């Protein structure tokens, strides 16, 4: 096993991990403020990828305009899921199980809706994802081949992590988000509009999911309405492995799972078929031995 092979696996792993990380941040943020596993988050990522596809391929917009628009639309979809589905339940003080079932319902609604849209207007469930050639340019360093995309995504992820941390710690709305995560009722008593702040959290998480989704669609250049289900669950596992409630933990968890998913089948080819199960096996081990995750945050007390 050569050094270059190992390096190659590490680079590929980090690239996949970044995509999980971007989605995991959304899980962590929503879990932080509402204590709700947003099962639909993976499908929000799918919506992002489909929107980019529709704007770029079908409407023929400039790639960067298409991506920006799709991020905005996805953020709006994220807010809509909160306003139409979760908020009425939260207002009624519904038990947690209702929220979870609703989340699964939204997830299936988005999947089947986009399934119908894809079949009816895009000509099939599976679609090849097009993007400018520039991203697939390959850099050769000795025998290591690195597509430009594989380099951009991890760097972008780190920058976005810094952005999210800046929002959370340096801006007014970030302080409000952390306050809500700590105690939502007191925040309401202080006169802050909790709904607006939660809607912002959904928008932020969904925008990041859209970026993750578009990167994922570019890396495996195809999209389908059910792509978000598995990726979303793995990203949630990443968020728990990293320590749910911690944004940095979500990114670390994402990197670990992405790396494991690329490297383990790379080094042990006979385990290749189990690729999709690693996230859950890791998750179960982490919950068994360190239920608070790697960043070790006690999610009943401390947030972000």
């Amino acid at each position, binding site marked *: 096993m050569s050094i270059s092979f190992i390096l190659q696996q590490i680079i590929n792993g980090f690239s996949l991990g970044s995509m999980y990380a971007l989605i995991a941040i959304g899980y962590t943020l929503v879990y932080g403020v509402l*204590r*709700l*596993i947003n099962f639909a988050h993976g499908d929000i990522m799918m919506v992002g990828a489909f929107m980019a596809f529709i704007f770029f391929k079908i409407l023929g917009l400039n790639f960067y305009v298409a991506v920006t628009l799709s991020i905005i639309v996805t953020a709006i979809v994220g807010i809509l899921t909160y306003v139409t*589905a979760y908020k*009425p*339940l939260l207002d*009624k003080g*519904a038990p*947690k*199980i*209702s929220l*979870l*079932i*609703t989340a*699964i*319902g*939204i997830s*299936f*609604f988005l*999947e*089947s*809706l986009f*399934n*119908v849209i894809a*079949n*009816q207007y895009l000509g099939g469930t599976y679609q090849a994802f097009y993007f400018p050639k520039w991203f697939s340019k390959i850099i050769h360093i000795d025998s290591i081949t690195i597509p430009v995309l594989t380099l951009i995504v991890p760097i972008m992820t780190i920058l976005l992590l810094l952005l999210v941390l800046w929002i959370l710690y340096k801006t007014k709305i970030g302080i409000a988000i952390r306050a809500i995560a700590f105690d939502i009722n007191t925040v309401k008593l202080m006169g802050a509009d909790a709904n607006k702040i939660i809607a912002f959290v959904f928008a932020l998480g969904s925008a990041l999911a859209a970026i993750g989704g578009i990167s994922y669609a570019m890396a495996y250049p195809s999209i389908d309405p059910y792509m978000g*289900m598995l990726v979303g*669950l793995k990203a*949630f*596992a990443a968020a*728990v492995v990293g320590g749910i409630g911690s944004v940095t933990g979500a990114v670390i968890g994402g990197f670990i799972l992405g790396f494991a998913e690329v490297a383990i089948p790379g080094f042990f080819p006979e385990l290749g*078929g*189990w690729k*999709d*199960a690693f*996230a*859950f*096996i890791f*998750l*179960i081990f982490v*919950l*068994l031995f360190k*239920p608070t995750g790697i960043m070790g945050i006690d999610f009943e007390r401390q947030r972000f």
Partner: protein
Amino acid sequence: MKNLTPAKYFTLIGIVTLIFIGFLYVSPKIFSDYTTTVLGNVYIFIILAISYNLINGVTGQFSLEPNGFVAIGAYVTALLMLSPDIKADMYMIADPLPIIRDIYLPNPFLALIISGIVSALVALTLAFPVFRVRGDYLAIVTLGFGFIIRIFLINNPSISNGSMGLDSIPGFASYFWIGVVCLITVILVYNIVYSKHGRAMKAVRDDEDAALAMGINTFKTKTIAFMTSAFFEGVGGGLLASSIGSISPDQFTFMLTFQLLIIIVLGGLGSMSGAIIGTLLLIGGMEVLRPLDDANWQLGPVHGIPGLRMVVFSLILLLIMLFARRGILGDKEIWDYIKIRRNK
């Protein structure tokens, strides 16, 4: 129904049994083949739904892995019922393990019982990691397990024939016998729910810490519920395998769990009669809405699009959650409502 004397209780159960067996005997003669097939499906889903309801509704542990247990039941039944010669021919990707090839027990009754027991044993091993966590985490861990069981079936072609699945499974599960198994399951689960253990399960659902403080061994209670639920899901899976005749890992995706979840939420979490009504409505509704998937169907401006049925179904689930969160019956049984009316 709770306050009946044993004599009255057994008479009641006897009458229900007789009426239902009579219905099972007569219905193939009155209804078309299509209707009896749908009804057979309903019985299987009643078995799956009330056993899922036992862990999810009665014990309040939000688990999402029944697809895994159903898959185990289906595969065990299939492997027991298929003869070594057929299996040797059928395994294309890898040769079956000798033990898998030679195992042959062509007795439907034993095959179903063993399927249930294997499922329950898997549930027992899962209980230790699964019940260390609660609530949301339980949901995601069990969902992961349902997933891992499917991946195991796909990646072990010498045990399960991989993604090719198994076929030509003997069709012992006739309409009549599915109905009988369904009746037995309903009676058994009813007796568990309204027994000492059932009350402990409800106590765990309502307040786990208080139940623990009252001296209930919550882990044991949850494990019993989990194993019982897995047992009947395994039996249901065996019936499903036999009535369809062929199985593959793709039949046991999260979709199956989702259908069962809609059923028990629709009927009312924790209500057995709710689970039965929910099954009738869902399977019936699936058949009624079937035209939505047909591109040739049209009603005014609306016309069928493949996949539209699932959109409508998930919308129905969302609307139930928003406007009728407690389902049709809440956590009560249908006779509780009848009694209230009589008292007035």
